[in-house]
């Protein structure tokens, strides 16, 4: 089966600019996650969707980050405006249940 697709792979932007990441989960996976992985740290959950509804966004900086999952399939994560500390790898994962997580390759964001 195809894996979790993410794009772009790399992105360099200036601070205060906007950026968007895209994720296409494995077909049929109801749950979708966005994680932020800062260099040298473990992934931190930003937001969790169940179909197209938000289950957990308690660690999403809502003043600048937003995410949506249209029709319970693809998802986009947006940052507006970006800060230097947003430099990280943004990982998307999907699962049919709580034990079948598959991660995408991630988008590496550099804010200069």
């Amino acid at each position: 089966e195809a894996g979790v697709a993410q794009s772009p792979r790399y992105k360099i932007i200036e601070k205060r600019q906007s950026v968007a990441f895209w994720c296409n989960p494995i077909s049929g996976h109801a749950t979708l996650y966005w994680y932020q992985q800062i260099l040298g740290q473990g992934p931190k959950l930003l937001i969790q969707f169940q179909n197209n509804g938000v289950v957990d966004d308690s660690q999403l900086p809502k003043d600048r980050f937003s995410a949506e999952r249209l029709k319970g399939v693809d998802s986009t994560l947006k940052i507006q405006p970006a800060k230097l500390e947003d430099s990280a790898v943004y990982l998307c994962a999907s699962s049919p249940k709580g034990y079948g997580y598959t991660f995408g390759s991630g988008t590496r964001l550099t804010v200069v």
Partner: protein
Amino acid sequence: AQSVTQLDSQVPVFEEAPVELRCNYSSSVSVYLFWYVQYPNQGLQLLLKYLSGSTLVKGINGFEAEFNKSQTSFHLRKPSVHISDTAEYFCAVNFLTQGGSEKLVFGKGTKLTVNP
């Protein structure tokens, strides 16, 4: 509070030596347990997982882990490491509530360096 602790941030070992990477968690709910490996500039790859049943779980690349419920631990072991095992290893715990919700939380990672 639900948390995952990896006690060692860095573990250097010599090739062919055994290694143990430690992971402890804190939880009042049921859990599923995972170990992931991340090679430089690559994504997360699942090494092994514990869902239920035998507490000794075998994974890919010769790794295994043992779930100890009383000590809330899930330590990763390999009897003989190779240079190619050099990578970052993450313990992750899926906390399951009675309401059916779940949350996958990662530890901060352990950087394993295998020296010749």
